[in-house]
């Protein structure tokens, strides 16, 4: 079996191309394409069954991208900022499925901020990616709510308002998996994606994903140049499947923190910052504030807590998804109606 890597099947007998989608219509070099490519790679490596994934998105450049990966998964391109509500209904109707949502900074930070926060509260089991470039692309270059204070853009002038930090918002909302990544750092993004897919509830990854058309000058915090120069990883991340032993490399054991994920897989966090503890919500707030003040692109797993049950766990739904209940379970009997009507 000496086939080229692209043709080699994974654990569920699928090749990498089985996880592909339609050709991207985004700009060449757009960070979002890099993210889509990593999703394909991760899904292949994990041996995901595409039909067990629901792809979701809102409106914007980012939200087009679910068409570019997992072509044999069902997907729903919802309304601007309202992916969370479609996701909540779909993943409650079939709670065995995993949601993989792609949103943008305008989608989640402006019109969708309400739905974003309430999704965090409900802890729906889904991966929520924000492809964050600080700018509205399809409408040609207006500031998004995550644009930093003082950012100067050709179309929009100078931004006089402070940014919305979606990691902070996720934390406030009660999210138990808060991470930030940089589209230019493929390895870290892959490991975070794998861990997010193993999380019990909502996992947010805010991905700095530069807009090559409207926001890629090195002075902008959402540009490739700035990201490369100012990325501060909290830790080196290694995701380990449930069935594999943990093999630590390059780091002393004391430097590595093992985080157990809900499906039995583990995350090895080899600390870059010695004092950082992703299980402390207070510390996470503090570190995010610090990063903002310093102009750092802080990446890695910022906060992790898997103690809170997901929405379907709170609702204690039975094994059969609501969508697959047989007719006799859906409609109560004639006798049941008679019994109810006796009360009136």
């Amino acid at each position: 079996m000496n086939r080229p890597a692209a043709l080699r099947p994974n654990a569920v007998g699928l090749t990498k191309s089985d996880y592909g989608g339609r050709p991207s219509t985004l700009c060449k070099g757009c960070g979002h394409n890099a993210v889509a490519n990593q999703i394909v790679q991760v899904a292949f490596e994990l041996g995901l069954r595409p039909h067990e994934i629901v792809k979701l998105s809102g409106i914007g450049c980012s939200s087009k991208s679910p068409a570019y990966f997992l072509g044999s998964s069902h997907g729903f391109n919802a309304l601007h900022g309202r992916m969370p509500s479609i996701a909540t209904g779909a993943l409650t109707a079939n709670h065995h499925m995993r949601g993989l949502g792609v949103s943008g900074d305008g989608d989640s930070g402006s019109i969708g901020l309400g739905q974003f926060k309430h999704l965090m509260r409900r802890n729906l089991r889904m991966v929520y990616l924000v492809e964050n470039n600080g700018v509205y692309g399809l409408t040609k270059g207006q500031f998004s709510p995550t644009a930093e204070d003082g950012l100067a853009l050709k179309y929009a002038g100078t931004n006089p308002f402070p940014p919305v930090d979606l990691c902070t918002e996720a934390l406030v909302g009660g999210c138990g998996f808060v991470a930030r990544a940089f589209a230019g750092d493929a390895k870290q993004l892959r490991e975070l994606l794998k861990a997010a897919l193993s999380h019990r509830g909502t996992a947010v990854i805010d991905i700095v994903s530069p807009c090559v058309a409207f926001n890629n000058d090195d002075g902008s915090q959402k540009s490739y140049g700035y990201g490369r120069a100012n990325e501060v990883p909290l830790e080196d991340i290694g995701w380990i499947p449930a069935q594999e032993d943990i093999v630590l490399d390059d780091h002393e054991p004391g430097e590595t923190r093992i985080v157990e994920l809900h499906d039995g897989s583990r995350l090895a966090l080899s600390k870059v910052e010695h004092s950082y503890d992703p299980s402390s919500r207070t510390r996470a707030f503090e570190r995010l504030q610090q990063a903002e003040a310093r102009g750092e692109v802080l990446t890695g797993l910022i906060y992790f807590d898997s103690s809170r049950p997901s929405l379907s766990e709170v609702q204690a739904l039975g094994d059969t998804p609501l969508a697959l209940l047989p007719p006799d379970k859906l409609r109560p009997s004639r006798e049941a109606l008679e019994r109810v009507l006796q009360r009136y």
Partner: protein
Amino acid sequence: MAVVHPASPRPTRSDGRRVADFSISVGTANGTGSQTANLTLLRSIFNMGVPVHGKNVFPSNIQGLPTWFHIRASAAGWVARQEPEIAVAFNPATLHEDAASLPPGGVLVLNGDLRGAPERDDVITYVVPVAELMNDVEVKGKVKDFLINMTYLGVVAQLLGIPLDIVHRSLDQQFGGRRKLVDTNLPVVEASWRWAEANLEKIDPFVIEPMDATSDLMLITGNDAAALGTVFGGVSFAAWYPITPSTSVIDALESHLAALRTDADGTPYYSVVQAEDELAAIGMVLGAGWAGARSMTATSGPGLSLMAEFTGLGYFAEVPTVIWDIQRVGPSTGLPTRTGQGDIAFAYGLGHGDGKHPIFLPASVEECFAFGWQALDLAERAQTPVLVLSDLDLGMNTWMAERFAYPDREMDRGKLLRGDQVPDDYGRYRDVDGDGIAPRTFPGDPNPAAAWFARGTGHDPNAVYSERPEHWYENTQRLSHKFDTIRGLMPDPIVDLVGQADVGVICIGTTIYATEEARFRLAHRDLGFSLMRLRGLPIDDAVRDFVARHERVLVVEMNRDGQLCGILRAELPDLAYRLHSLAYLDGLPYTADQVERWLAPHLEPDPATTPWENA
């Protein structure tokens, strides 16, 4: 609704008594617990075998503002609102208003403890010594305040001739058999009834005598019936945001689902989510409908406004769900606790761009139940959002009803392809049957050919993004063709033709009750007309035929601009000149007097003026 047809418009006895043919208005302050007394009085009349209906005319307020409860007893079975002949005045703020509202010969039942009681020589006044009757009551505080209402219950029941044991039984039913509550309230009712028997000389003509017109009937609100119908339609998922007057739909839904959709081990197989707003509620039910769960939401005008964009997406992406709109009076906050039919035009085309939605138009609690399950069937058959337009009057008030009929057909989940049934070249929007409805697949299907991407952007028959003009044109034409298929799936209108009548009247919803009563009276004036009650949109040929066979068709509806009339004119352009609007809205349900007054000029054989110009 069960309507007994009387022999004459107003049956009066030779002895001058008015037997089971009058209206009562009870005026209290909101939040004083008067609802129990009012509903027990209603139930007592019902338990006497007499047809009865109650309407709550209440303020948007938790405590303190005036509230009225109207009870109409009618041996003939009429249930439209009727100006009261008996006023129970227990609210100091409205004493004068309540007394002034009475016709000469009316009855005022007055809380004797209230100062400044009005005097009217032409009405009969009974004064209830509330404090005296409450003397032996040991409880204190709020409960004592609540119990004050039991005094008028006892006094009015006695005055009307309702035996104490009937009142007792009704109180039991009202409290659902909760002993402690009955034991607290009953002594006050009893003491008041006996006080009235011993101290009041009955000099008014209004009485209830036993009948046998209600033994097969029950009492229920439209919202409760809607919830029950939805449960028997197999709903699995509901999302909502609280709003008057639709909240009680979901309250009832949750309680019925808990009772009927929970496994023996306590595991629920349903889900109800209280959303953060209506924008999210509609998104959630569309998400669930898309993923294969029968879903619904309930709202009212302001919420419906917020659901517009998503409903348009549901139409275009072809996703089933059911939206109950319990109409109130708008725009904006409007009159949140009053009734209307002002959402019809907005609901019919809800969303931007091209789009049309099937609408069920229930008029009775029986139809709330039936349309509850039928709307879920239609949503999945037609793969589109379906609306049900009820209103506050139907939804929140207590109506007599025949026992609901169990669904007479199997659940219709529409065109579905699963697993091996999905062809390799499956295209989500390919009209393989020629009826505009293409088979769908659910997420989670292991067949890779089953997957498709739902979206609001232009798409080809395979659900792939497309901006090609022919794809847009053909797709929206197919959607229009699908809407024509839906015409044949809506409930038929109820039509009652009068042989030679050249006037026809079209009604929707609860306006039928005042219209039927007015029609009965007008028939006694030899002013006959044909009547049709629409039960759904879009219309089919039955409506065209009705309009075509009458020279003038008057559309009676509860809004300002004649929204339904406008829709019918647009759907029947060649007959539009025959359609005339009789639209009126002030927040209250119509009385027969009103409708009789509006219709009569149009029916006069030789009108002095062109009547419809006055409409």
